[in-house]
Structures are given as structure tokens and as C-alpha cells.
């Protein structure tokens, strides 16, 4: 199916799935180790500052693996982030407006998403902090529910 929005079907990487993510770091958050792979320094910096409980951690073992792709979109997102949360059994989807989303599978600990990278470093950094904060704020109660066994799959 033609899924390239610029009208180029089957042009290699239609959904930008294979963008190279050369940067990675591991964080301790809520007692879990999260490995984050990304193509943006701003995302890793934001991860370190998005939640007061987030700490840099060794990467010898990880509980969750997240991949976050930063890209400059064709359309500029709304100035304020709206976050819509969709829960489908063990998967949580965070819709943060055009060009931004994050999905998390509580069964595997895998997460992935796209974040708006702006032309200016300052704007990119500010947006990345908001994006990561939203993810952590929304996942925290869900992970807690899971720990307590109240999460409905």
C-alpha cells in the first residue's frame, strides 16, 4: 500500500522505520532500567531532566528498551502539547498531536515514538523535555497499576 504521504509508494522506508539511531543511554526510573536509543542528543538530555526520579544507570541489564526518533516534520505541531492517551490491553499509546507519539507495550517493556525536532536547538530541547515528561507522567501510574496487579490486559 502506498503509505508515503509524499506520494512515493514503496520508496524504501515509507514509514521512516529504519532511521538510524546512533545514540543511546540507560536510565534508572521507578526501579526499572530503561535503555533509550535515539538520533537526538536533546532527547537524551531531556530524559535526564524530565523527571526528578530519573538517573543515569549502567547498561549491563535493562528492563525496558525505548526507541525515540527525532525528525523535523513537514507540519509544525500545535504550540501547546495536547496529550491523548489510548489504552488497548497491554499497550499504551500517547498521541501528542501531529508528528509526535509514543507507544509502550507493558508485556515486553518496549516503547517507541517520534518527537518533533525543531530548526532551533532551544526549541528542540524544550519540546523534548515536554515530550519525555508526558511519557513518564502517563506511564508512572500504569506501571504502578501493573505492579499492584490492577492493570487490565
Amino acid at each position, binding site marked *: 500500500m502506498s503509505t508515503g*504521504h509524499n506520494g512515493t509508494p514503496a520508496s524504501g522506508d515509507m514509514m521512516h522505520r529504519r532511521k538510524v539511531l546512533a545514540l543511546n543511554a540507560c536510565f534508572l526510573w521507578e526501579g526499572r532500567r530503561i535503555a533509550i536509543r535515539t538520533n537526538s542528543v536533546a532527547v537524551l538530555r531531556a530524559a535526564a531532566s524530565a523527571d526528578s526520579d530519573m538517573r543515569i544507570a549502567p547498561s549491563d541489564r535493562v528492563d525496558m528498551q525505548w526507541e525515540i526518533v527525532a525528525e523535523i516534520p513537514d507540519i509544525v505541531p500545535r504550540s501547546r502539547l495536547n496529550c491523548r492517551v*489510548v489504552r488497548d490491553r497491554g499497550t499504551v499509546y500517547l498521541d501528542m498531536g501531529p508528528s509526535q507519539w509514543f507507544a509502550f507495550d507493558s508485556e515486553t517493556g518496549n516503547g517507541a515514538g517520534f518527537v518533533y525536532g525543531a530548526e532551533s536547538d532551544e526549541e528542540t530541547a524544550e519540546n523534548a523535555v515536554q515530550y519525555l515528561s508526558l511519557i513518564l507522567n502517563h506511564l508512572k501510574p500504569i506501571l504502578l497499576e501493573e505492579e499492584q496487579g490492577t492493570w487490565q490486559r
Partner: protein
Amino acid sequence: MQNSHMEEREFVVCAQGLLFAGRQILLRTNAPKIAGYVSDFFPAYDMATDHSAGPAAEITLMITEGESTAGDGFPWFRGRGEFAVAQFTPDDTLWFNLRARRVFGSFSAAVANDRERWRRHIFPTLFGILAAAVDVAPVHAACLARDTGGLLLAAPSGTGKSTLAVALGRRGYTFLSDDWTCLALEEGVIRASGFPMPVKLLPDADRFFPELRSYRTGISLNGELAFEVSPVDCFGLQRVRSCAVTCIILLERTGRTGCDISEIDFDEAAQHLIAEIEPLEGSLAACYERQIDLIHHLKGAACFRLHFDENPDVVAEELDAVCGPWIRHEHRS
């Protein structure tokens, strides 16, 4: 910062089974209207009497009361790992967890009421993305059936697949699809199936098909200006939902008038089809490998390369003369 939440368990009012490329899919929705569209476009399966292992995938479609807001840059598709998102407007979105083989859609009432949009854009996108997870390989090819066989016309966009498919349809072939065809293994045999989509023809196709002059062009999903018409209503063609694949034709425009058909190795045809399948990595790598295997199951099909730049009726006549016996199995009998 505004937040809103929705959960599938709060709203589902009807559930039904549908068959996509022979795969049993469970659809759940809060909108009987959506269930009706599914019944119009896909064969049903009876979940109550089917005691097999369960559905190959589950789709939940939720219709909300909000308006659909317009926005630039849509549709917008992105995927990473096992996840994917298809946004048709800021308020109309499909979410995929391909590892779990689950799809969740949230749509406005305005889009829910637009039956043609579901047929032309939403269902093809949904099943196109889901395909790999349920061992279905979508290939960029038109498909037509004849007797017990069928032929794939494989080529990039703009080569003339749709035009040739209509011309073959007018010669007695049964129309299955004009752009994307889904291949899947059913009871040990590869079968092709299509989406319930209109045939898409570029504006200049009315040179060959005067029937188009009573229709208007519009903007298609990939942004092209095109006629999108029912092959049954516009051209009086027969339509079929699935067929076996006995012949593969690779189409190439030459820029010089004429039509030349030559037999090629299966490996050459297979490589062409495989190159059209999106490689998947990580947790979906095995899905991609199985899609490649599906293509290799086509071995035994007759394979040809067609170079052409000619009136589609002339090309269809020559193609039928050379490949028709293969498609109808007469060549080997």
C-alpha cells in the same frame, strides 16, 4: 496541557469476524455502521461456529462524538519497532502493535459517516500495515483472474498497471486489483486477494476509456489527481475476491511504440516482488522472512517481462495471446 483518555473496554458494542486474505480477524467497535462497512467489503466468518485457534488479529475501532478537524500534511504514517501510527486527520488515527497483532482506531463521527473514505483510504491502510503481522505479503501489482488461474501485473506506479488491468478486464479477465495485491498461503497454495477499492486511472486514461468522461477526477490517497471508479459500474467488469497465481508479468514502459513479451526466470520475477516488500527488523524480522517465503512459494508460475508503449487494448490482446494459455493452464496440459 490537555489530556484525554479512552479505553477499549468502555465502549465496545459489537464484535464480528472478517476474512482478510484468508486470515480470521476479529473486529470490535462501538459503531454498528462500521461493522456494516466491514460486511460490505470483506467476507465474514462466524466466530460462534469456528473453533480454531482464535483470530489472527484483533481490531478495535472507536467512534467519538467530536468533530474532525482539518490539518495539513495528512495522511501521516510512521512506524518503529512493533508499533505504527496512521493519522488521517488530527482526530482520526489508527494505532498498531504488530507484535501483539492488535489495532486500535479512533475516528470522528464525520469520518465514520464517510463510507467511501473507509473503502478507499482507511481499510487499505489498516490492512496494508497489519499484513506482515498476519503472514500476508502485499505486492505492488495488479491482479486478474481467468478460469482457475490468475496473473500478477507488477510495476512501479505510473507504468500503466491499472490501464492494462481494465483493458484485460474488457477481454474477459476478472478484475481483482489494480495496484496492490495481497499474497497469502491458504491450504498450501498461494492465493491473491485484493482490497475492495475503486480502480485508479490517471486523467489521460479517458483517451482509451471514453466511459470515464462522465466521471470527475479527484485527489487520491497518495496525492495524485486521478479517476477513482468502480470497475464494475464504470466498465461492466466482473470482480473476484481471490484467485490462484499462475503467471507473473513484469511491466516496463519503453518510450517506443510497440509491445514485446519475453519469458524470464522465476528468480528474476521473485526478486522484483521481494524488492517491493518493506523490510522489517527487530521483533518483526521473522514476519518479513515469512513474507519472502510466500513469494518463493510462487515458483511454478510462468514469468514474463513485457516492454510496451502502445494502446492498452493492443497490449492486452498480445498479452492474452502469449500468456493466456499459461493462465488457463492450457500450456501445460
